[in-house]
Protein backbone atom coordinates (compact mmCIF):
# COMPACT_ATOMS: atom_id res chain seq x y z
CA UNK A 1 0.00 0.00 0.00
CA UNK A 2 1.27 3.37 -0.93
CA UNK A 3 2.29 5.20 2.24
CA UNK A 4 1.80 8.63 0.74
CA UNK A 5 -1.85 7.94 0.02
CA UNK A 6 -2.58 6.85 3.56
CA UNK A 7 -0.88 9.90 5.04
CA UNK A 8 -2.56 12.28 2.60
CA UNK A 9 -6.05 10.95 3.14
CA UNK A 10 -5.59 10.74 6.90
CA UNK A 11 -4.55 14.39 7.11
CA UNK A 12 -7.56 15.52 5.10
CA UNK A 13 -9.87 13.27 7.06
CA UNK A 14 -8.56 14.52 10.39
CA UNK A 15 -9.00 18.07 9.16
CA UNK A 16 -12.64 17.32 8.43
CA UNK A 17 -13.16 15.72 11.86
CA UNK A 18 -11.41 18.66 13.51
CA UNK A 19 -13.63 21.20 11.84
CA UNK A 20 -16.74 19.25 12.74
CA UNK A 21 -15.67 18.93 16.38
CA UNK A 22 -14.91 22.62 16.70
CA UNK A 23 -18.26 23.49 15.18
CA UNK A 24 -20.06 21.05 17.45
CA UNK A 25 -18.68 22.72 20.57
CA UNK A 26 -19.83 26.12 19.36
CA UNK A 27 -23.50 25.30 19.57
CA UNK A 28 -25.47 27.79 21.61
CA UNK A 29 -28.48 26.45 23.51
CA UNK A 30 -32.07 27.59 23.10
CA UNK A 31 -31.22 29.02 19.73
CA UNK A 32 -32.89 28.37 16.41
CA UNK A 33 -30.32 27.30 13.87
CA UNK A 34 -31.27 27.81 10.24
CA UNK A 35 -29.33 26.47 7.27
CA UNK A 36 -29.55 28.89 4.35
CA UNK A 37 -28.58 27.82 0.85
CA UNK A 38 -28.63 30.12 -2.16
CA UNK A 39 -28.35 28.76 -5.72
CA UNK A 40 -26.16 31.51 -7.11
CA UNK A 41 -25.27 35.16 -6.68
CA UNK A 42 -27.83 37.25 -8.53
CA UNK A 43 -29.25 40.59 -7.37
CA UNK A 44 -32.81 39.27 -6.87
CA UNK A 45 -31.63 36.24 -4.94
CA UNK A 46 -29.48 38.45 -2.74
CA UNK A 47 -32.59 40.53 -1.94
CA UNK A 48 -34.45 37.35 -1.02
CA UNK A 49 -31.61 36.46 1.35
CA UNK A 50 -31.38 39.90 2.96
CA UNK A 51 -35.15 40.19 3.35
CA UNK A 52 -35.28 36.79 5.03
CA UNK A 53 -32.43 37.41 7.44
CA UNK A 54 -33.81 40.77 8.54
CA UNK A 55 -37.35 39.46 8.98
CA UNK A 56 -36.46 36.22 10.78
CA UNK A 57 -34.41 38.17 13.29
CA UNK A 58 -37.41 40.39 13.88
CA UNK A 59 -39.78 37.41 14.24
CA UNK A 60 -37.65 35.26 16.52
CA UNK A 61 -35.36 37.81 18.13
CA UNK A 62 -31.92 38.60 16.79
CA UNK A 63 -30.06 36.83 19.59
CA UNK A 64 -32.15 33.68 19.25
CA UNK A 65 -31.33 32.91 15.62
CA UNK A 66 -28.18 31.54 14.15
CA UNK A 67 -28.02 31.36 10.37
CA UNK A 68 -25.51 29.27 8.45
CA UNK A 69 -25.21 30.92 5.05
CA UNK A 70 -24.01 28.86 2.07
CA UNK A 71 -24.00 29.65 -1.63
CA UNK A 72 -23.63 27.05 -4.39
CA UNK A 73 -22.47 29.72 -6.88
CA UNK A 74 -24.32 28.03 -9.71
CA UNK A 75 -22.77 24.60 -9.28
CA UNK A 76 -25.07 21.64 -8.76
CA UNK A 77 -22.40 19.43 -7.20
CA UNK A 78 -21.66 22.23 -4.80
CA UNK A 79 -25.35 22.54 -3.96
CA UNK A 80 -25.49 18.80 -3.38
CA UNK A 81 -22.38 18.94 -1.17
CA UNK A 82 -23.86 21.76 0.90
CA UNK A 83 -27.10 19.82 1.26
CA UNK A 84 -25.30 16.79 2.63
CA UNK A 85 -23.30 18.98 5.00
CA UNK A 86 -26.60 20.43 6.22
CA UNK A 87 -28.05 16.96 6.61
CA UNK A 88 -25.14 15.96 8.81
CA UNK A 89 -25.51 19.00 11.04
CA UNK A 90 -27.92 17.84 13.72
CA UNK A 91 -28.06 21.34 15.23
CA UNK A 92 -30.01 22.78 12.33
CA UNK A 93 -33.73 23.12 13.01
CA UNK A 94 -34.95 24.24 9.60
CA UNK A 95 -33.73 25.19 6.14
CA UNK A 96 -34.19 28.12 3.83
CA UNK A 97 -33.53 27.57 0.11
CA UNK A 98 -33.28 30.45 -2.34
CA UNK A 99 -34.14 29.58 -5.96
CA UNK A 100 -35.05 26.34 -7.65
CA UNK A 101 -31.82 24.34 -7.77
CA UNK A 102 -31.02 25.01 -4.11
CA UNK A 103 -34.49 23.83 -3.12
CA UNK A 104 -34.13 20.74 -5.30
CA UNK A 105 -30.75 19.82 -3.82
CA UNK A 106 -32.15 20.13 -0.29
CA UNK A 107 -35.30 18.24 -1.21
CA UNK A 108 -33.32 15.11 -1.96
CA UNK A 109 -31.21 15.16 1.21
CA UNK A 110 -33.53 16.55 3.85
CA UNK A 111 -36.72 14.63 4.46
CA UNK A 112 -37.22 14.98 8.20
CA UNK A 113 -36.90 18.71 8.78
CA UNK A 114 -38.86 21.64 7.36
CA UNK A 115 -37.61 23.46 4.26
CA UNK A 116 -38.86 26.93 3.37
CA UNK A 117 -38.09 28.18 -0.12
CA UNK A 118 -38.23 31.50 -1.96
CA UNK A 119 -37.81 32.45 -5.62
CA UNK A 120 -39.14 29.10 -6.85
CA UNK A 121 -41.55 29.76 -9.70
CA UNK A 122 -43.30 26.44 -10.04
CA UNK A 123 -43.18 24.48 -6.74
CA UNK A 124 -46.06 22.17 -7.71
CA UNK A 125 -44.63 21.20 -11.08
CA UNK A 126 -41.28 20.41 -9.46
CA UNK A 127 -42.89 18.01 -6.96
CA UNK A 128 -42.21 20.22 -3.97
CA UNK A 129 -45.77 20.06 -2.70
CA UNK A 130 -46.42 16.35 -3.05
CA UNK A 131 -48.14 14.42 -0.27
CA UNK A 132 -46.19 14.53 3.02
CA UNK A 133 -43.82 17.12 1.60
CA UNK A 134 -41.68 18.92 4.15
CA UNK A 135 -41.53 22.03 2.00
CA UNK A 136 -43.37 25.31 1.78
CA UNK A 137 -42.35 28.82 0.88
CA UNK A 138 -43.01 31.73 -1.39
CA UNK A 139 -43.27 31.39 -5.13
CA UNK A 140 -42.05 34.18 -7.38
CA UNK A 141 -44.70 33.48 -9.99
CA UNK A 142 -45.91 36.85 -11.24
CA UNK A 143 -49.53 37.45 -12.17
CA UNK A 144 -48.90 37.44 -15.91
CA UNK A 145 -52.50 37.84 -17.18
CA UNK A 146 -52.72 41.10 -15.21
CA UNK A 147 -49.34 42.26 -16.45
CA UNK A 148 -50.30 41.78 -20.08
CA UNK A 149 -53.63 43.49 -19.47
CA UNK A 150 -51.91 46.53 -17.98
CA UNK A 151 -49.48 46.68 -20.90
CA UNK A 152 -52.41 46.60 -23.30
CA UNK A 153 -54.13 49.45 -21.47
CA UNK A 154 -51.01 51.54 -21.12
CA UNK A 155 -49.69 50.98 -24.63
CA UNK A 156 -52.71 50.17 -26.82
CA UNK A 157 -50.75 50.69 -30.03
CA UNK A 158 -48.16 48.01 -29.44
CA UNK A 159 -48.51 45.32 -32.10
CA UNK A 160 -45.46 43.23 -31.41
CA UNK A 161 -43.58 42.39 -28.25
CA UNK A 162 -40.06 40.98 -27.94
CA UNK A 163 -39.58 38.45 -25.13
CA UNK A 164 -36.05 38.71 -23.81
CA UNK A 165 -35.00 35.84 -21.52
CA UNK A 166 -32.52 33.08 -20.82
CA UNK A 167 -33.85 29.84 -22.29
CA UNK A 168 -31.99 27.92 -19.58
CA UNK A 169 -33.71 29.46 -16.59
CA UNK A 170 -36.72 27.48 -15.41
CA UNK A 171 -38.42 30.54 -13.91
CA UNK A 172 -38.19 32.44 -17.21
CA UNK A 173 -39.39 29.52 -19.28
CA UNK A 174 -42.47 29.10 -17.08
CA UNK A 175 -43.32 32.81 -17.24
CA UNK A 176 -42.68 33.15 -20.96
CA UNK A 177 -45.04 30.27 -21.67
CA UNK A 178 -47.80 32.05 -19.83
CA UNK A 179 -46.88 35.42 -21.42
CA UNK A 180 -47.27 33.91 -24.87
CA UNK A 181 -50.72 32.54 -24.02
CA UNK A 182 -51.88 35.90 -22.71
CA UNK A 183 -50.40 37.87 -25.61
CA UNK A 184 -52.17 35.58 -28.05
CA UNK A 185 -55.44 36.21 -26.20
CA UNK A 186 -54.89 39.96 -26.55
CA UNK A 187 -54.00 39.65 -30.24
CA UNK A 188 -50.50 40.96 -29.74
CA UNK A 189 -47.70 39.42 -31.80
CA UNK A 190 -44.52 38.32 -30.10
CA UNK A 191 -41.07 37.08 -30.91
CA UNK A 192 -38.61 35.07 -28.82
CA UNK A 193 -35.27 36.66 -28.12
CA UNK A 194 -33.70 33.87 -26.17
CA UNK A 195 -30.23 34.04 -24.77
CA UNK A 196 -27.93 31.38 -23.34
CA UNK A 197 -25.76 33.57 -21.14
CA UNK A 198 -25.23 37.15 -20.06
CA UNK A 199 -22.84 37.70 -22.94
CA UNK A 200 -25.71 37.23 -25.44
CA UNK A 201 -27.90 39.91 -23.89
CA UNK A 202 -26.61 42.82 -25.99
CA UNK A 203 -27.05 41.01 -29.30
CA UNK A 204 -30.53 39.77 -28.41
CA UNK A 205 -31.60 43.25 -27.33
CA UNK A 206 -30.27 44.77 -30.52
CA UNK A 207 -32.35 42.26 -32.45
CA UNK A 208 -35.39 42.94 -30.31
CA UNK A 209 -35.43 46.72 -30.80
CA UNK A 210 -35.44 46.32 -34.57
CA UNK A 211 -38.24 43.78 -34.68
CA UNK A 212 -40.64 44.82 -31.94
CA UNK A 213 -42.22 47.85 -30.32
CA UNK A 214 -41.81 46.74 -26.74
CA UNK A 215 -39.33 44.60 -24.85
CA UNK A 216 -40.82 42.37 -22.18
CA UNK A 217 -38.50 40.62 -19.73
CA UNK A 218 -39.67 37.85 -17.36
CA UNK A 219 -38.11 37.27 -13.95
CA UNK A 220 -34.75 36.36 -15.39
CA UNK A 221 -31.49 36.32 -13.47
CA UNK A 222 -29.21 36.70 -16.49
CA UNK A 223 -31.12 39.64 -17.95
CA UNK A 224 -31.37 41.25 -14.50
CA UNK A 225 -27.61 41.10 -14.18
CA UNK A 226 -27.08 42.61 -17.62
CA UNK A 227 -30.01 44.99 -17.46
CA UNK A 228 -28.00 48.23 -17.87
CA UNK A 229 -27.05 47.19 -21.40
CA UNK A 230 -30.67 46.33 -22.26
CA UNK A 231 -31.78 49.74 -21.07
CA UNK A 232 -29.02 51.50 -22.98
CA UNK A 233 -29.81 49.83 -26.31
CA UNK A 234 -33.57 50.26 -25.86
CA UNK A 235 -33.13 53.93 -25.01
CA UNK A 236 -31.17 54.59 -28.18
CA UNK A 237 -33.81 52.83 -30.26
CA UNK A 238 -36.64 54.58 -28.38
CA UNK A 239 -38.32 51.33 -27.37
CA UNK A 240 -39.99 50.95 -23.96
CA UNK A 241 -39.02 48.11 -21.63
CA UNK A 242 -41.26 46.23 -19.21
CA UNK A 243 -39.66 44.00 -16.59
CA UNK A 244 -41.18 41.39 -14.31
CA UNK A 245 -39.41 42.26 -11.12
CA UNK A 246 -39.24 45.36 -8.97
CA UNK A 247 -36.40 47.30 -7.44
CA UNK A 248 -34.69 48.02 -10.75
CA UNK A 249 -32.77 51.28 -10.56
CA UNK A 250 -32.15 51.58 -14.30
CA UNK A 251 -35.63 52.92 -15.01
CA UNK A 252 -37.60 50.61 -17.25
CA UNK A 253 -41.02 52.00 -18.25
CA UNK A 254 -42.89 49.47 -16.14
CA UNK A 255 -41.71 47.26 -13.32
CA UNK A 256 -44.22 44.60 -12.55
CA UNK A 257 -44.22 41.83 -10.08
CA UNK A 258 -42.49 40.31 -7.26
CA UNK A 259 -40.51 42.22 -4.74
CA UNK A 260 -37.80 39.71 -3.83
CA UNK A 261 -37.09 41.35 -0.53
CA UNK A 262 -40.73 40.91 0.37
CA UNK A 263 -40.60 37.34 -0.88
CA UNK A 264 -37.74 36.67 1.55
CA UNK A 265 -39.68 38.32 4.34
CA UNK A 266 -42.71 36.14 3.66
CA UNK A 267 -40.51 33.06 3.76
CA UNK A 268 -39.24 34.21 7.15
CA UNK A 269 -42.82 34.54 8.41
CA UNK A 270 -43.60 31.02 7.23
CA UNK A 271 -40.44 29.82 8.92
CA UNK A 272 -41.56 31.44 12.18
CA UNK A 273 -44.93 29.69 11.92
CA UNK A 274 -43.15 26.37 11.54
CA UNK A 275 -40.60 26.89 14.30
CA UNK A 276 -42.68 28.69 16.89
CA UNK A 277 -46.21 27.43 16.22
CA UNK A 278 -44.92 23.95 15.30
CA UNK A 279 -47.02 23.74 12.16
CA UNK A 280 -46.19 21.13 9.51
CA UNK A 281 -44.95 22.64 6.25
CA UNK A 282 -47.54 20.83 4.14
CA UNK A 283 -50.34 22.43 6.19
CA UNK A 284 -49.08 25.87 5.26
CA UNK A 285 -49.98 26.78 1.68
CA UNK A 286 -47.14 28.37 -0.23
CA UNK A 287 -47.64 32.07 -0.82
CA UNK A 288 -47.33 34.49 -3.68
CA UNK A 289 -45.89 37.90 -2.95
CA UNK A 290 -48.21 40.72 -3.98
CA UNK A 291 -47.56 42.08 -7.43
CA UNK A 292 -46.58 45.70 -7.55
CA UNK A 293 -46.85 47.93 -10.63
CA UNK A 294 -44.29 50.71 -10.81
CA UNK A 295 -44.14 53.24 -13.62
CA UNK A 296 -41.22 55.53 -14.23
CA UNK A 297 -42.19 59.20 -14.48
CA UNK A 298 -39.29 60.07 -16.75
CA UNK A 299 -40.05 57.19 -19.11
CA UNK A 300 -43.74 58.13 -19.27
CA UNK A 301 -42.63 61.55 -20.42
CA UNK A 302 -40.17 60.20 -22.99
CA UNK A 303 -42.81 58.00 -24.59
CA UNK A 304 -45.50 60.62 -24.12
CA UNK A 305 -47.88 58.32 -22.28
CA UNK A 306 -50.75 59.42 -20.09
CA UNK A 307 -51.92 56.88 -17.54
CA UNK A 308 -55.51 55.80 -18.35
CA UNK A 309 -58.13 56.23 -15.63
CA UNK A 310 -58.52 52.50 -15.18
CA UNK A 311 -54.90 52.12 -14.09
CA UNK A 312 -54.54 55.17 -11.88
CA UNK A 313 -55.48 53.41 -8.67
CA UNK A 314 -53.27 50.41 -9.36
CA UNK A 315 -49.95 51.87 -10.39
CA UNK A 316 -47.34 53.75 -8.46
CA UNK A 317 -45.45 56.42 -10.37
CA UNK A 318 -41.96 57.10 -9.09
Amino acid at each position, binding site marked *: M*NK*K*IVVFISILFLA*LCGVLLVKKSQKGHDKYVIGLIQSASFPNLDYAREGFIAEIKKELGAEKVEIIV*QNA*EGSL*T*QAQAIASSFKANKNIDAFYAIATTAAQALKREITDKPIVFAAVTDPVGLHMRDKNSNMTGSSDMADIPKQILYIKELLPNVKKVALLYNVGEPNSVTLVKSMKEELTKQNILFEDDGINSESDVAAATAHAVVNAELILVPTDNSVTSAFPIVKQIAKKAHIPVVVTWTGESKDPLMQFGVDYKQSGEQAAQLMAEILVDKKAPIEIPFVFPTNKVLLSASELKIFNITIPESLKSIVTVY
Partner: protein
Amino acid sequence: MFSLLPIVTGILERGFIGSFVVMAVYLASRIMKFDDFSIEGTFGLGGAVVAYSVIHGQNPWFALLLGVIAGGLSGLITGLLHTKLGLNRLISGIVVTTMLFSLSINIGGSNVALGSVETIFSAFNSYSYGNLLLLAPFSFLVGIFYVWYMKTESGFVLRSTGINEQFVTSLGKSVPFYIILCLVFANSLSALAGGIFVQYSGFFSAFGNVGTLIAALAGCMIAELFSWNMFMTAILGSIIYQLIIAITIELQVEPSWQKLITGLLIVAILVVKKIEGAKKKVLKHA
Protein backbone atom coordinates in the same frame (compact mmCIF):
# COMPACT_ATOMS: atom_id res chain seq x y z
CA MET B 1 -24.45 10.50 17.24
CA PHE B 2 -21.40 12.13 15.74
CA SER B 3 -22.47 13.74 12.51
CA LEU B 4 -19.51 12.56 10.43
CA LEU B 5 -21.16 9.57 8.83
CA PRO B 6 -23.68 11.31 6.53
CA ILE B 7 -20.97 13.71 5.37
CA VAL B 8 -18.64 10.86 4.51
CA THR B 9 -21.42 9.00 2.72
CA GLY B 10 -22.13 12.13 0.68
CA ILE B 11 -18.45 12.59 -0.15
CA LEU B 12 -18.15 8.99 -1.31
CA GLU B 13 -21.33 9.13 -3.37
CA ARG B 14 -20.34 12.28 -5.22
CA GLY B 15 -16.79 11.04 -5.44
CA PHE B 16 -17.82 7.81 -7.18
CA ILE B 17 -20.07 9.66 -9.60
CA GLY B 18 -17.32 12.17 -10.33
CA SER B 19 -14.78 9.39 -10.85
CA PHE B 20 -16.23 8.67 -14.30
CA VAL B 21 -15.50 12.23 -15.38
CA VAL B 22 -12.00 12.02 -13.91
CA MET B 23 -11.44 8.88 -15.98
CA ALA B 24 -12.74 10.76 -19.01
CA VAL B 25 -10.31 13.63 -18.42
CA TYR B 26 -7.49 11.14 -17.94
CA LEU B 27 -8.33 9.35 -21.19
CA ALA B 28 -8.52 12.55 -23.21
CA SER B 29 -6.00 14.90 -21.62
CA ARG B 30 -3.38 12.44 -20.45
CA ILE B 31 -3.51 9.40 -22.69
CA MET B 32 -4.43 11.16 -25.93
CA LYS B 33 -2.96 14.60 -24.97
CA PHE B 34 -6.24 16.02 -26.27
CA ASP B 35 -7.69 18.57 -23.84
CA ASP B 36 -11.30 17.90 -24.59
CA PHE B 37 -13.68 20.62 -23.52
CA SER B 38 -16.72 18.70 -24.77
CA ILE B 39 -16.53 16.51 -21.65
CA GLU B 40 -18.33 19.34 -19.86
CA GLY B 41 -21.06 19.42 -22.50
CA THR B 42 -21.63 15.67 -22.59
CA PHE B 43 -22.11 15.59 -18.81
CA GLY B 44 -25.15 17.81 -19.38
CA LEU B 45 -26.28 15.92 -22.47
CA GLY B 46 -26.13 12.58 -20.66
CA GLY B 47 -28.25 14.08 -17.89
CA ALA B 48 -30.77 15.53 -20.33
CA VAL B 49 -31.19 12.27 -22.25
CA VAL B 50 -31.57 10.26 -19.06
CA ALA B 51 -34.04 12.75 -17.55
CA TYR B 52 -36.15 12.73 -20.71
CA SER B 53 -36.10 8.93 -20.99
CA VAL B 54 -36.98 8.05 -17.41
CA ILE B 55 -39.75 10.64 -17.29
CA HIS B 56 -41.15 9.08 -20.45
CA GLY B 57 -41.27 5.70 -18.76
CA GLN B 58 -38.06 4.07 -19.94
CA ASN B 59 -36.18 1.65 -17.76
CA PRO B 60 -33.56 3.71 -15.85
CA TRP B 61 -30.71 1.43 -16.93
CA PHE B 62 -31.81 1.61 -20.55
CA ALA B 63 -32.03 5.40 -20.16
CA LEU B 64 -28.47 5.42 -18.91
CA LEU B 65 -27.40 3.41 -21.94
CA LEU B 66 -29.11 5.95 -24.24
CA GLY B 67 -27.29 8.74 -22.43
CA VAL B 68 -23.96 6.98 -22.87
CA ILE B 69 -24.62 6.49 -26.59
CA ALA B 70 -25.52 10.18 -26.97
CA GLY B 71 -22.30 11.10 -25.17
CA GLY B 72 -20.28 8.79 -27.39
CA LEU B 73 -21.78 10.36 -30.51
CA SER B 74 -20.80 13.83 -29.29
CA GLY B 75 -17.26 12.59 -28.75
CA LEU B 76 -17.34 11.28 -32.30
CA ILE B 77 -18.30 14.74 -33.54
CA THR B 78 -15.54 16.45 -31.55
CA GLY B 79 -13.08 13.96 -33.01
CA LEU B 80 -14.31 14.42 -36.56
CA LEU B 81 -14.15 18.23 -36.24
CA HIS B 82 -10.51 17.90 -35.29
CA THR B 83 -9.33 15.09 -37.53
CA LYS B 84 -11.38 15.77 -40.67
CA LEU B 85 -11.82 19.54 -40.60
CA GLY B 86 -8.54 20.31 -38.91
CA LEU B 87 -10.15 22.40 -36.20
CA ASN B 88 -7.93 23.12 -33.20
CA ARG B 89 -8.43 20.56 -30.40
CA LEU B 90 -9.59 22.99 -27.76
CA ILE B 91 -11.87 24.81 -30.21
CA SER B 92 -13.56 21.59 -31.40
CA GLY B 93 -14.43 20.80 -27.81
CA ILE B 94 -15.79 24.28 -27.15
CA VAL B 95 -17.83 24.23 -30.37
CA VAL B 96 -19.39 20.89 -29.47
CA THR B 97 -20.11 21.96 -25.88
CA THR B 98 -21.81 25.11 -27.15
CA MET B 99 -23.97 23.08 -29.51
CA LEU B 100 -24.75 20.53 -26.82
CA PHE B 101 -26.19 23.23 -24.57
CA SER B 102 -28.99 23.78 -27.07
CA LEU B 103 -29.52 20.07 -27.50
CA SER B 104 -29.64 19.43 -23.76
CA ILE B 105 -32.07 22.22 -23.13
CA ASN B 106 -34.40 20.99 -25.87
CA ILE B 107 -34.22 17.40 -24.71
CA GLY B 108 -34.30 17.91 -20.95
CA GLY B 109 -35.82 21.36 -20.58
CA SER B 110 -34.25 24.11 -18.52
CA ASN B 111 -35.12 22.37 -15.28
CA VAL B 112 -37.12 19.23 -14.75
CA ALA B 113 -37.79 17.18 -11.62
CA LEU B 114 -37.95 13.40 -11.88
CA GLY B 115 -40.58 13.19 -9.15
CA SER B 116 -41.24 9.66 -8.05
CA VAL B 117 -40.21 7.79 -11.20
CA GLU B 118 -38.09 4.69 -10.85
CA THR B 119 -34.32 5.29 -10.94
CA ILE B 120 -31.32 2.99 -10.77
CA PHE B 121 -31.20 3.80 -7.06
CA SER B 122 -34.82 2.76 -6.36
CA ALA B 123 -33.96 -0.91 -5.89
CA PHE B 124 -31.31 -0.02 -3.32
CA ASN B 125 -33.40 2.43 -1.31
CA SER B 126 -34.21 -0.11 1.38
CA TYR B 127 -30.55 -0.52 2.36
CA SER B 128 -29.04 2.14 4.59
CA TYR B 129 -26.05 2.71 2.31
CA GLY B 130 -27.91 1.73 -0.84
CA ASN B 131 -26.46 4.42 -3.08
CA LEU B 132 -22.91 3.41 -2.22
CA LEU B 133 -23.76 -0.26 -2.66
CA LEU B 134 -24.56 0.55 -6.26
CA LEU B 135 -22.05 3.30 -7.03
CA ALA B 136 -18.88 1.75 -5.60
CA PRO B 137 -18.95 -1.54 -7.56
CA PHE B 138 -20.15 0.32 -10.64
CA SER B 139 -17.24 2.71 -10.69
CA PHE B 140 -14.71 -0.05 -9.87
CA LEU B 141 -16.12 -2.21 -12.66
CA VAL B 142 -15.77 0.60 -15.18
CA GLY B 143 -12.26 1.28 -13.89
CA ILE B 144 -11.30 -2.38 -14.20
CA PHE B 145 -12.74 -2.50 -17.71
CA TYR B 146 -10.38 0.29 -18.80
CA VAL B 147 -7.42 -1.28 -17.00
CA TRP B 148 -8.11 -4.45 -18.97
CA TYR B 149 -8.75 -2.59 -22.21
CA MET B 150 -5.45 -0.70 -22.07
CA LYS B 151 -3.67 -4.06 -22.05
CA THR B 152 -5.33 -5.28 -25.24
CA GLU B 153 -3.81 -4.60 -28.65
CA SER B 154 -6.31 -1.87 -29.42
CA GLY B 155 -5.63 -0.25 -26.04
CA PHE B 156 -1.90 -0.42 -26.66
CA VAL B 157 -2.23 1.38 -29.99
CA LEU B 158 -4.55 3.93 -28.40
CA ARG B 159 -1.97 4.72 -25.73
CA SER B 160 0.76 4.92 -28.36
CA THR B 161 -1.25 7.43 -30.41
CA GLY B 162 -0.97 9.95 -27.60
CA ILE B 163 2.78 9.46 -27.32
CA ASN B 164 4.01 8.97 -30.84
CA GLU B 165 1.69 9.29 -33.81
CA GLN B 166 4.39 8.33 -36.32
CA PHE B 167 4.93 5.04 -34.55
CA VAL B 168 1.23 4.27 -34.87
CA THR B 169 1.29 5.17 -38.54
CA SER B 170 4.30 2.93 -39.05
CA LEU B 171 2.29 0.06 -37.54
CA GLY B 172 -0.23 0.63 -40.32
CA LYS B 173 -2.90 1.89 -37.92
CA SER B 174 -5.04 4.97 -38.47
CA VAL B 175 -4.20 7.83 -36.09
CA PRO B 176 -7.54 9.67 -36.54
CA PHE B 177 -9.42 6.46 -35.75
CA TYR B 178 -7.71 6.09 -32.39
CA ILE B 179 -8.09 9.76 -31.52
CA ILE B 180 -11.82 9.51 -32.22
CA LEU B 181 -12.11 6.21 -30.34
CA CYS B 182 -10.50 7.80 -27.29
CA LEU B 183 -12.87 10.78 -27.42
CA VAL B 184 -15.86 8.47 -27.77
CA PHE B 185 -14.73 6.62 -24.65
CA ALA B 186 -14.12 9.84 -22.73
CA ASN B 187 -17.42 11.47 -23.65
CA SER B 188 -19.52 8.40 -23.04
CA LEU B 189 -17.96 8.21 -19.56
CA SER B 190 -18.83 11.84 -18.92
CA ALA B 191 -22.40 11.29 -20.16
CA LEU B 192 -22.63 8.26 -17.89
CA ALA B 193 -21.69 10.43 -14.92
CA GLY B 194 -24.21 13.07 -16.00
CA GLY B 195 -26.94 10.45 -16.30
CA ILE B 196 -26.17 8.96 -12.91
CA PHE B 197 -26.04 12.41 -11.33
CA VAL B 198 -29.53 13.25 -12.59
CA GLN B 199 -30.94 10.02 -11.15
CA TYR B 200 -29.01 10.63 -7.93
CA SER B 201 -30.09 14.24 -7.40
CA GLY B 202 -33.63 13.74 -8.72
CA PHE B 203 -33.62 16.60 -11.19
CA PHE B 204 -31.98 17.93 -14.33
CA SER B 205 -30.87 21.52 -14.74
CA ALA B 206 -29.48 22.93 -17.97
CA PHE B 207 -26.69 24.62 -16.05
CA GLY B 208 -25.87 21.54 -14.01
CA ASN B 209 -22.75 20.72 -15.99
CA VAL B 210 -21.01 24.02 -15.30
CA GLY B 211 -17.76 23.42 -13.47
CA THR B 212 -17.68 19.65 -14.09
CA LEU B 213 -14.52 19.82 -16.13
CA ILE B 214 -12.47 21.81 -13.66
CA ALA B 215 -13.58 19.59 -10.78
CA ALA B 216 -12.58 16.51 -12.77
CA LEU B 217 -9.27 18.08 -13.72
CA ALA B 218 -8.54 18.74 -10.05
CA GLY B 219 -9.51 15.14 -9.27
CA CYS B 220 -7.27 13.89 -12.07
CA MET B 221 -4.28 15.87 -10.79
CA ILE B 222 -4.79 14.60 -7.26
CA ALA B 223 -4.98 11.08 -8.68
CA GLU B 224 -1.68 11.55 -10.46
CA LEU B 225 0.06 12.15 -7.15
CA PHE B 226 -0.28 8.44 -6.48
CA SER B 227 1.67 5.88 -8.37
CA TRP B 228 -1.00 3.28 -9.04
CA ASN B 229 -2.95 2.45 -12.09
CA MET B 230 -4.61 5.71 -13.12
CA PHE B 231 -8.07 4.26 -13.62
CA MET B 232 -8.07 3.06 -10.02
CA THR B 233 -6.57 6.24 -8.56
CA ALA B 234 -9.08 8.26 -10.60
CA ILE B 235 -11.74 7.05 -8.17
CA LEU B 236 -9.55 7.99 -5.23
CA GLY B 237 -8.71 11.40 -6.70
CA SER B 238 -12.36 12.20 -7.25
CA ILE B 239 -13.23 11.23 -3.67
CA ILE B 240 -10.36 13.29 -2.23
CA TYR B 241 -11.48 16.28 -4.26
CA GLN B 242 -14.99 15.96 -2.81
CA LEU B 243 -13.41 15.63 0.64
CA ILE B 244 -11.59 18.92 0.18
CA ILE B 245 -14.78 20.61 -1.03
CA ALA B 246 -16.60 19.25 2.03
CA ILE B 247 -13.94 20.75 4.28
CA THR B 248 -14.29 24.18 2.67
CA ILE B 249 -18.05 23.95 3.16
CA GLU B 250 -17.70 22.94 6.80
CA LEU B 251 -15.21 25.74 7.35
CA GLN B 252 -17.87 28.06 5.91
CA VAL B 253 -15.40 29.68 3.61
CA GLU B 254 -17.11 32.65 1.95
CA PRO B 255 -18.74 30.75 -0.96
CA SER B 256 -17.69 33.23 -3.61
CA TRP B 257 -14.09 32.24 -2.93
CA GLN B 258 -14.62 28.54 -3.49
CA LYS B 259 -13.69 28.61 -7.16
CA LEU B 260 -10.44 30.34 -6.31
CA ILE B 261 -9.74 27.53 -3.85
CA THR B 262 -10.24 24.91 -6.57
CA GLY B 263 -7.78 26.79 -8.76
CA LEU B 264 -5.25 27.18 -5.95
CA LEU B 265 -5.57 23.48 -5.21
CA ILE B 266 -4.48 22.67 -8.74
CA VAL B 267 -1.56 25.08 -8.47
CA ALA B 268 -0.57 23.56 -5.13
CA ILE B 269 -0.54 20.07 -6.62
CA LEU B 270 1.66 21.28 -9.47
CA VAL B 271 4.08 22.76 -6.96
CA VAL B 272 4.19 19.51 -4.97
CA LYS B 273 4.91 17.57 -8.16
CA LYS B 274 7.64 19.97 -9.19
CA ILE B 275 9.34 19.61 -5.80
CA GLU B 276 9.06 15.81 -5.91
CA GLY B 277 10.50 15.81 -9.42
CA ALA B 278 13.44 17.93 -8.24
CA LYS B 279 14.06 15.56 -5.33
CA LYS B 280 14.18 12.54 -7.60
CA LYS B 281 16.70 14.24 -9.84
CA VAL B 282 18.95 14.98 -6.89
CA LEU B 283 18.73 11.36 -5.77
CA LYS B 284 19.68 10.12 -9.21
CA HIS B 285 22.75 12.32 -9.37
CA ALA B 286 23.88 11.36 -5.89
